[in-house]
């Protein structure tokens, strides 16, 4: 769909309204509930384990460029690096080179995490490493890094393709505790099989809200839930009408692109 039609504009407008309304509600002090996300709870456990073992952590933001998937991964990375900096644990961040502007952004986020913890002198630029713009060259670079540095924990958050299992299984081989999260539905099974904790689908977007408990982010989550309820109602309505009036009823045709 290159341009919006009326139905799409109305639906997107309503979804956006739900999200913005709840963000404003949260800003005004409304208490909002978020359920437990088990995978995210273990981030601190993984960092603690690495600290005890005296081995570094590894954070990979996958193959994404400077898009919202990677921005979300960088928010999680910032949290991990800040916590690790507090405990004087190194975090290795190999960067994929498919989108050139990504590398300076990752380096800046990494540096800012150390500054926020009051340890700017502990920032080691060699820990943020550009590897390659080729998918499998990047994967083999990360695998080599895991083996050489004997990482105690790996965080795989972002956009991943076929190399997801390569990275996750290598982490298993070196005995690292592994947390992964991606919105890619086709890579989730690989992460579930090879990682200790996996964050699936929409939980990926909820992670930053869960970690920070920022009212704005929690409000946005509630707005997303309202949006999904609306979509479910539309689907159910379409289903019921299709059962009684056939698949070419006015409601189904309304949503036809």
């Amino acid at each position: 769909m290159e341009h919006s039609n009326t139905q799409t504009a109305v639906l997107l407008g309503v979804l956006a309204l739900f999200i913005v309304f709840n963000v404003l509600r949260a800003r005004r002090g409304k208490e909002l509930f978020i359920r437990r996300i088990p995978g995210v709870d273990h981030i601190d456990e993984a960092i603690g384990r690495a600290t005890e073992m005296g081995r570094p952590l590894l954070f990979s933001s996958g193959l994404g460029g400077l898009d919202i998937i990677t921005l979300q991964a960088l928010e999680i990375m910032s949290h991990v690096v800040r916590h690790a900096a507090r405990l004087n644990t190194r975090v290795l961040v190999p960067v994929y080179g498919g989108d050139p502007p990504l590398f300076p952004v990752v380096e800046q986020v990494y540096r800012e995490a150390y500054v926020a913890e009051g340890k700017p002198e502990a920032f080691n630029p060699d820990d943020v490493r550009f590897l390659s713009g080729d998918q499998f060259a990047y994967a083999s670079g990360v695998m080599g890094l895991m083996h050489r540095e004997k990482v105690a924990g790996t965080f795989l958050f972002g956009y991943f393709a076929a190399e997801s299992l390569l990275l996750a299984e290598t982490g298993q081989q070196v005995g690292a505790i592994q947390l992964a999260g991606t919105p890619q539905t086709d890579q989730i099974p690989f992460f579930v099989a090879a990682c200790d904790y996996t964050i699936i689908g929409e939980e990926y977007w909820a992670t930053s809200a869960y970690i920070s408990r920022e009212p704005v982010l929690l409000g946005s989550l509630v707005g997303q839930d309202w949006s999904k309820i609306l979509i479910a109602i539309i689907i159910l309505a379409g289903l019921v009408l299709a059962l009684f009036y056939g698949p070419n009823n006015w409601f189904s045709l309304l949503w036809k692109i």
Partner: protein
Amino acid sequence: MEQKTLSQRVQAIDRKYLYLLLGVVMIAPLFYQEHFLPTFVSQEAVGIYEAVEAVPPDKVIVLAADYDVATMGENQPQLEAAIRHIMKSGKRFVILAQSQVGPELAEKGAETLAKELHKSYGVDWVNWGFLAGGVPMLKGLASNVRSEVKKDIHNKPLDEIPMMANVKDIHDVGLWLDFTGSGIWGMYVQFIYGPYKVPLGVGCTAVIGPQLFPYLDSGQLVGQLFGMRGAAEYEELNHHFGRGDRAMPSISFAHLLIIVLIILGNAGYFVARRRGGGAR
């Protein structure tokens, strides 16, 4: 050191032996060249076959070879099976790609088949080569082919190629087949099928196959070739024992091996649990 019981050892087989087993199980059947396993053709493969059959003689079929050497194992046999069908039906096709290596790999396949089926470059097929530019390129190609493609992969101007005389824009395309291991097919759903309703089929790697089912269900895709099995199915429809068919025994035994190993691991786990100890 405590001696491991059989159940503990079965749960923790060293991965070296697993990899060796897999290697043997996959390589051994390749030496046996007979077609000893039946191939059951899926609706999705039939969809592509029928779509090729339905292309009118005055239109061309676009084969988008959007794969590289990494996924060549699955996509190349699919492409070759499709080319064989197209050539045997007397239809004409165009190769293009948004991957740099795709056009060369596809051209090699086409040339080999052309020798066997007595077809000629420039009359029965053309290779437009690697086309960069993504969405703007596709839009330009759809409105006017020559705005995006001046010369073919052999550096020959399009206007000097006999087949290109009647190929001007998207309305001269009767079917668009994409062979890929990435998500690039989504671009064709949006910018080729969406505005122009050109029938679209995808030959994909098995990993991304399930992603395409919603599009098959909605009618946006006419069919799908699902990994190596898709290639074998298409070869079955072509009545030709090709690379896809040759690989099916290896893949079959590999799947069987995975099932056996899972059962073995769980058997060890249950025995150890019953004894009240043992490894995870």
